[in-house]
Structures are given as structure tokens and as C-alpha cells.
């Protein structure tokens, strides 16, 4: 279709969908209302399992299967990205020499920020069942922190800190731990992904049963997975070249 015809088709369809949205939205309960059935069930359920962060309780206990699926999407995408961004037949990877071109100060910031983001990331993961955060958020913070090294201009330093095979292992291990905890639930508590460890005291670091264990597993998987994905994009930008062009 021509650009004009395409726009016309979209405008017809889009206008009708907009109308559909409008009549549905006007029928919906108002924004800010106070009756939330699922909330009224989920909060007491979280309290029963001594999980102070109710969102974590929903994610890793009440609706843990959703998160299991979500982590599967993540690892499948990591593998998919790696497969799609592999050097094609006519390409090779070259090695980047450490030229030391970047300014010392920028590089210093990168090195200094690394431990800071490591501490923040780990804290977010380990307290995910008590305060806002969790395995996913902490894992992303860790992965981003590592890539500050790239932003500050030291790709070779990043490359040294990032033995990619180890990250593949971490990724697989994190996701496998989630599955294994789920299957252990069948063996020891009678249902898949059952929260079976002793719950501990509400609000304490050691509480919420399996929630923190799953948080750590997800943290490992997300950290390793995001690093692996970004590494593949970085490789495309920096190291993958057509044969003969170098």
C-alpha cells in the first residue's frame, strides 16, 4: 500500500479502536476507588507468610508461576539475542587493545561507581521481601553498574571483568534454581512453588520463607542475563567486523 492508503486504513481502524477504548473506560470503576477485591485477599495472605513487601509476596509466593514464566522469557531472550547477534559467516571478532586513551578522571568515576552500584544492587536484592525492590531491580542495577565502565570509556576493563561464559552459567543457574525451588515445593510441601521454609518474623531480613531465596535466584539470573544481552550489542558495535575490512 502507499503511505497514504496505509494511513487511511490505520485511521479507520484506530478511530474505531479509540471508540472501543472510550466506551470501555467510561464503564470502568473510577480511578482511585476503594474497593479492590484481589488486594483485600493478597495483603492478609502476605502477612500470613510474613512478607512485608506485598508486591514481592504476589510475585514470588502467591503468583510465583507468573514470575517463573517471566524469568523464562528473560533467559529465552538472552539465548535468542546471543543466537541472533552471533558473528555471521563472513564476520569475525577482533580484539581491542587497551589504548588508555580515555581520561583518567572519567575512568576513575567508572571504577568508583562500580562498588557503589554493587552495594546498592545487592541491598535491593537481599531486602526485596521487606522494602521496595527485589531480584529483578537489583539485578538490573548490578548490570548497569558494570556497564558504567563502558560509559566511562574503558571497554577493555569491562571486557576483563566480564568472562561471558561465567555469565551464561550464572544465567542458567539462576533460572534453574527457580525451577528447582518450585519442584522442591512438590516434594516437601505438596505443591509447585509452595512457600515451605519457616516464615520468620514479619519485617526481618530472615522472613518470608522462600521469597528471599527466589529473589536471589532472580537477581543472579537478571544480572547475568542483562550483562550478556548488553555484551552482545556491545560486541556488534565494537568487535564484530566483516572479514577483510580490518
Amino acid at each position, binding site marked *: 500500500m502507499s*503511505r497514504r492508503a*496505509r*494511513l487511511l486504513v*490505520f485511521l479507520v481502524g*484506530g478511530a474505531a*479502536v*479509540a471508540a472501543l*477504548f*472510550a466506551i470501555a*473506560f*467510561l464503564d*470502568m470503576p*473510577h*480511578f*482511585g*476507588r*476503594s474497593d*479492590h477485591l*484481589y*488486594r483485600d485477599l*493478597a*495483603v492478609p495472605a*502476605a*502477612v500470613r507468610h510474613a512478607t*512485608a*513487601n*506485598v*508486591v514481592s*509476596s*504476589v*510475585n514470588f509466593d502467591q*503468583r510465583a508461576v*507468573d*514470575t517463573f*514464566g*517471566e524469568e523464562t*522469557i*528473560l533467559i*529465552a*531472550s*538472552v539465548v*535468542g*539475542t546471543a543466537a*541472533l*547477534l552471533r558473528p*555471521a559467516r563472513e564476520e569475525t571478532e577482533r580484539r581491542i587493545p587497551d589504548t588508555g586513551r580515555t581520561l583518567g578522571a572519567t575512568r576513575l568515576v567508572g571504577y568508583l561507581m562500580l562498588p557503589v552500584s554493587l552495594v546498592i544492587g545487592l541491598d535491593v536484592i537481599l531486602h526485596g521481601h*521487606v*522494602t*521496595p525492590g527485589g531480584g*529483578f531491580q537489583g539485578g538490573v542495577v548490578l548490570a548497569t553498574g558494570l556497564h558504567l565502565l563502558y560509559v566511562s570509556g574503558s571497554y577493555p576493563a569491562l571486557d576483563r571483568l566480564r568472562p561471558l561464559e561465567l555469565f551464561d552459567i550464572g544465567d542458567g543457574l539462576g533460572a534453574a534454581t527457580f525451577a528447582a525451588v518450585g519442584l522442591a515445593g512438590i516434594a516437601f510441601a505438596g505443591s509447585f512453588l509452595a512457600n515451605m521454609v519457616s516464615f520468620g518474623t*514479619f*519485617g*526481618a531480613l530472615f522472613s518470608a520463607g522462600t521469597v528471599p531465596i527466589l529473589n536471589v535466584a532472580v537477581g543472579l539470573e537478571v544480572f547475568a542475563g542483562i550483562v550478556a*544481552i548488553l555484551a*552482545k*550489542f556491545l560486541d*556488534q558495535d565494537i568487535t564484530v567486523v566483516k572479514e577483510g575490512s580490518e
Partner: protein
Amino acid sequence: MNVYAYFVAGWLLLAGGYGIVRSRHMVHAIVSLAVSQAGTYVLLLAVGYQSNVTAPVFGSTEKPTKQVVDPVVQAMTLTDIVVSATVTALLLALAVQVNKRQGTLDPDELVALEG
């Protein structure tokens, strides 16, 4: 004002669709898709919101008796964000390869699949 948040969500969904339809660059189309998906975040969180109550996180000091907003939509949105990031990664990876093979990412010039 009671439904403003829902309409912002609907707007984002449609705007993203418009972006893909008018797109001149596949990366632009992929980012527009992510805008569409952001519409679903806004819708879900708006559905679970309650005025004048706090987040569903009690922390280590608070008693779990106060009223909170719906935690379930927040859990759903978290999943949704992960889906968005990972699907975008896959699509961008495909776009990188399309560009390598065909030397363009303008949908009007990509002709490997007509018929």
C-alpha cells in the same frame, strides 16, 4: 477526571500503533511498540490505584494494618516491564541483522518478503 488516567493509557497504545504505521525506520517502529506497551503499564497501575493510601510495602517497622493500593497490578506491571525489555532486545537484534543484510531499515525499502 475520574477516567483521565485510563485515557492516557489508551492514548499511548494508539500513539505507538500510529508510530509503527508511519515509521520510516525499524528501530523507530520497535521503540514505538515499547510506547504502546507503556500504555498497558499505565492502565494496570491506574486500575489498582486508591486515593490517599500508601504503597503496599510495609518495611521492617510498620504494622500491616494500614490501607494500601493494589499490589497485584504492580506485580503484573513488573512482569510487563521485563517482557518489554526482553522483547525489545530480541527485536533490536533482528533489526541489526536486517540492516546488515539489506543495508536499510526503512520499511518502505525492505522488500525481501512481498507476496
